[in-house]
């Protein structure tokens, strides 16, 4: 129902939720947020980790996305 947290190069989730996603091997950009405007909470991340632990998450852990190519 909610939009994915990543749009236009942005991720709409607090740093603590983003870090938790990495800890739990969840690709936060695929998590649908339940917060206002679709913001992803820590609870959303945990729910994603529990339900879809196999899907997007495992690959995300393997090769962390270089969403931003950090080169001049």
């Amino acid at each position, binding site marked *: 129902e909610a939009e994915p*947290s990543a749009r236009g190069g*942005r991720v709409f989730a607090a740093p603590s939720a*983003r870090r938790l996603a990495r800890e739990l091997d969840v690709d936060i950009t695929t998590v649908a947020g339940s917060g206002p405007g679709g913001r992803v909470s820590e609870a959303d991340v945990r729910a994603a980790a529990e339900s879809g632990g196999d899907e997007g998450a495992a690959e995300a852990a393997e090769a962390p996305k270089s969403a931003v190519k*950090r080169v001049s």
Partner: protein
Amino acid sequence: MVVGDISTGTDVLVVGAGPGGYTAAIRASQLGLDTTLVEKDAYGGTCLNVGCIPSKALITAADLAYTAGHAEEMGIHADPAVDMMGLQSWKGDVVDQLTGGVEKLCKANGVNLVEGTAEFDGPNKVRVAHGGEGQGSESIEFERCIVSTGSRPMQIPNFEFDEETILSSTGALALESLPDSLLVVGAGYIGMELSTVFAKLGTDVTVVEMLDDVLPGYEADVARAVRKRAEDIGIEFHFSEGASDWEPVGDIARVTTETEDGETSEYDAEKVLVAVGRSPVSDTLDLEAAGVETDEKGFVPTDDRARTNVEHIFAVGDVAGEPMLAHKAMKEGEVAAEVCAGEPSALDYQAIPAAVFTDPEVATVGMTQAEAEDAGFDPLVGKFPMRASGRALTLAEHEGFVRVVADADSEFVLGAQIVGPEASELVAEFTLAIEMGAQLADVVSTIHTHPTLGEAVMESAANARGEAIHTLNR
């Protein structure tokens, strides 16, 4: 550390003790890694010694002297005299206090400090040449390495820095007497900050810039505000001209500039400051010997864990690319150290704020309206002019504005542009808002102390929502 020709080992070797390097070293050591930090010149790097800190010290002093001398409006009559030697000695004290602090913090956190120039000798070893003749060298083997060798001022043809007449920012920051006249080549943030310092201290400042306004890269209204005030304090600008050559004429320098069409002009000045950008320092440590690649400009490309193409070698700070800012270097240093320690860290920040300490100050974070459009958002913009801020007026400041850019749909805050007093501080709240995924309503609902400049942050967000109190909603 064992010094000599005996080879020693360390978990993490950090090369360069600027903001990127010392932060990486302290953090790595905090996380239990045996950490060695090699620095060839001075703790604190560019930032503390010849960058952020000395420039801001001079800005404070120049600003105080100028403001006090121009406060008749408030009933204050003063004619401050500035003794440059005294100013330089205070600046030196500030620098010493901070660089000494960095050294102490490194030691207190258990970082091994090595003085010398590091050069790769294969992918897991550096050779450190100690400064001075006969000081010998040592080899250090490492599990992981963090390269944080920073940047240096860029030169342009015919303007080699002698730091006597042709100055880099380093030389300009160290002047022990006030030049009568100064020609500044380049109206980027460093050129503008230093032009303002010298103009406020009483030097005749002329700025030559290839592009057509100050602060290239900033929006037109931001640049205009800075240029107008600079003109008010007496700075003369010549845009669309590049400095092509110079010659000494008696005690002064005669600088020739050229437009795109080849039209030339000449300017005379006692000193010339060339501030046209900075280049990465990736040539001091034989990166090839470790297999680390650089791009065509000399920057070391890295991924979102600050890793170079060589898995166990990281690069952070100016050498790793734009934006060349101390706080970006520190964040990268922190993340590199955490990744070395096996933590799930990444460079996943949503925005890096940037400030220009001109008069008025400028600070920006995240997206401009145009950038938001390009990223596919439908931008909702709110603005608050500083002249409507009670706090700004009580500070005798009228210039500037706070502008917020949000996504019209979700009302998530996407960016902000601030011009005015304490812009560099005000941007922090927007940055937190962006990182938190805050909406305009969150900023509006947050009670802001009266009277503060921070109310303008709230009002800009309210203005975007059509519910501002202290400015008209249009």
